[in-house]
């Protein structure tokens, strides 16, 4: 509409990129001797096991089925035998039901459980079913089932598919390389997604720090002009879906609404590239690209990692020494979470593993937080236009209901910009995570059990059956 409008959103921050792994190609990681596949790797209901202990499985075989609409199946990442189905530690903390596979040494990369299919013959509805059967979730880190994101209720007409290739988190380069190395698969995946959601055009948004990826994709654009590549300024959190919609289309998604309310669906490039690879071949999601980097890693790079590989194996392969003296973060440094156990497996949601030395992370003394001086820096950077300073003070007083009703904490997507700039080192985003978790529990306690965790419960991590427990009389 306004050609002179700068293609970006308001506020945000500019952390150092640290994308030192961007130059090298993606490498492949060998199978671990034992794979751990949690049944709840996605948002929604945990999958239901289809195998029993002692059963042999081949690479690509479905080993757990989706439990209802908001759920996806899980596929065996390697040939082997199911050792057990038991509780195993998860990256989030609680132990979760997982399928443990002992991998045969002779297991090959070949995916034997596959049936190539003609996607053009499928209706959009059948296409969505096929996407669910492939076990695909949002590979950007949210792990929201892809078919659910692409299922558009009748009242919305989708005009644009936005393909998110921003990768605004520092250190991560996995999406960058997929765009550069697999543009054909990406185009195929975009075609599939456009048909599934009924969009007439697709825009790939790439940050301007990845000119080679933009060039590689431009070289493969189809002639009909339905797909275009747009370069947006490098700024964090450009890759958040509401920010990217604002940047590319100039549309603001109203509070509490989803992109589909403004006729847009956003998908990550990683998700669509993998879709373009596995859907025509009729395979399931068995591996993903993970950036393994950071000062504590000897062989940093991006790897095709079979889903279910224990963190310890990945780090040993990438050359991390004496991990007990380091800080390990799953995901990017802004939104990622530190992980406490190396037995935790790489799940569908893991986009990066960062390893920092003790000396690279600030000493606890300088991390001490001071009272808020009302400088307003956090207000200047909050991409959602919230008032983190006020929210922080309310959180300290446990006024969670007020945070929700008057200060829209529900709009916060935990990007961490406020905490990044706070000169008083107040752990704002951590307080907001706590507040949101408590508010979710309160809502769940009020709602009838079957309604909580349904269709639009975005952002809510799997709850693992947490119930309000007051002892009955």
């Amino acid at each position, binding site marked *: 509409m306004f050609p002179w409008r700068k293609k970006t959103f308001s506020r945000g921050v500019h952390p150092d990129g640290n994308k030192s792994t961007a130059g090298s190609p993606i490498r492949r990681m060998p199978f671990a001797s034992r794979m751990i596949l949690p049944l709840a790797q996605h948002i929604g209901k945990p999958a239901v096991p289809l195998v029993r202990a002692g059963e042999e499985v081949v690479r690509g075989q479905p080993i757990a089925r989706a439990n209802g609409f908001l759920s996806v199946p899980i596929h065996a990442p390697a040939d082997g035998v199911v050792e057990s189905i038991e509780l195993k530690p998860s*990256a*989030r*903390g609680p132990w979760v039901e997982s399928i443990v596979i002992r991998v045969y040494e002779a297991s090959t990369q070949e995916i034997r459980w596959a049936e190539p299919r003609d996607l053009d013959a499928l209706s959009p509805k059948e296409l969505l079913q096929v996407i669910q059967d492939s076990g695909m979730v949002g590979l950007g880190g949210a792990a929201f089932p892809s078919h659910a994101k692409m299922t558009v209720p009748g009242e919305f007409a989708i005009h644009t598919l936005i393909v998110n290739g921003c990768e605004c988190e520092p250190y991560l380069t996995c999406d960058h390389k997929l765009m550069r190395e697999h543009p054909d698969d990406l185009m195929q995946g975009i075609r599939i997604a456009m048909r599934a959601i009924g969009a007439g055009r697709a825009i790939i948004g790439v940050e301007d720090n990845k000119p080679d990826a933009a060039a590689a994709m431009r070289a493969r654009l189809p002639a009909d002009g339905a797909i275009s590549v747009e370069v947006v300024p490098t700024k964090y959190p450009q890759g958040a879906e509401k920010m990217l919609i604002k940047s590319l289309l100039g549309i603001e998604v109203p509070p509490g609404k989803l992109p589909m309310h403004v006729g847009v669906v956003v998908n990550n490039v990683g998700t669509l590239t993998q879709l373009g690879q596995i859907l025509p071949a009729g395979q399931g999601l068995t591996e993903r690209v993970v950036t393994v980097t950071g000062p504590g890693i000897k062989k940093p790079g991006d790897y095709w990692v079979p889903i279910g590989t224990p963190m310890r194996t990945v780090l040993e392969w990438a050359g991390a020494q004496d991990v007990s003296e380091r800080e390990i973060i799953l995901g990017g440094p802004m939104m990622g979470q530190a*992980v*406490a156990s190396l037995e935790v497996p790489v799940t569908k949601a893991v986009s990066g593993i960062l390893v920092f030395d003790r000396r690279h992370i600030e000493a*606890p003394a300088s991390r001490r937080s001071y009272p808020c001086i009302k400088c307003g820096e956090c207000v200047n950077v909050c991409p959602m236009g919230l008032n983190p300073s006020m929210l922080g003070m309310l959180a300290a007083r446990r006024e969670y209901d007020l945070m929700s009703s008057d200060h829209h904490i529900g709009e916060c997507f935990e990007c961490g910009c406020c905490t990044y700039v706070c000169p008083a080192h107040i752990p704002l985003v951590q*307080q907001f995570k706590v507040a949101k978790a*408590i508010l979710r529990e309160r809502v769940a306690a009020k709602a009838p059990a079957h309604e909580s965790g349904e269709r639009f419960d975005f952002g809510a991590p799997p709850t693992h059956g947490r119930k309000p427990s*007051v*002892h009955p009389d």
Partner: protein
Amino acid sequence: MEMMSGIAVAGAFMAVLGTLLAWLLAVANKRLYVYEDPRIGEVEEYLPKSNCGACGTAGCRNFAEQVVAGEIVPGKCTVNAPEMNAYIASFLGVSLGDVEKRVARLACAGGSHVAYVRAHYQGLGSCRAAATVSGGGKACAWGCLGLGDCESVCDFDAITMNSFGLPVVDADLCSACGDCVEVCPKDLFSLQPVSHKLWVACRSRADGDVAEAQCEVACTACGKCVMDAAPGLIRLDNNLAVIDYAKNRLASAVAIERCPTGAMVWLQDGQAVKGREAKKIIRIEALPMRANVV
């Protein structure tokens, strides 16, 4: 003359208006009158006014309304002194109600001297926040994080953290309001009648060997208590001993005697008594970090 009539008109107008409004108020007073039992205010006077919600109502006023309406017995207020509740009961001429005192109880005994940590948590000093970071770094994913959210949320100062980082509940001060139950990210608190003396101080669902490697006082689900106790009182559920309090009258200290880790305790006079075969732990310093614990 002109001025006089003006004053008269204004005066008359005001008089008519005043009468009209007074009449309106009189009608409204009759028509919109809501009868409120004066006893509600009286009862409220004798309540603690802490609005803690322990009784299950929205607050003390709401409780007073329900007591007067006969929907709830005065004894349900656990914060009030018993003689105050007895006074309310006699004032209203209702029975006090047979309400047993309940206290908040922690299902964990894994202090820093017996439970391993696999990683050091540095960050916002709250259990809730720590729990969002990979569970908080404690080896046992079910155990108490010891950062004291329950201590800070308690309005009655009934909870204090001991030197091992475990909350200790003062049964006399505890009003069973349930704030600690809500705030604990690991769901370790529950409100228990004081007659529930047999207690499993563990929530670990890990396999016995794993649980014991993570914490020296974990329930390993060995099943000895199940064998020793009255039939049906204790059962094993997913690697944890679970007491069926519906059969509480069968409970006795016999069940704790052979517990090898001392996870099964008998609560008496504010003390958790361990069985004779429970391993004796005299360590007082915290255990070192153990990154490779399963």
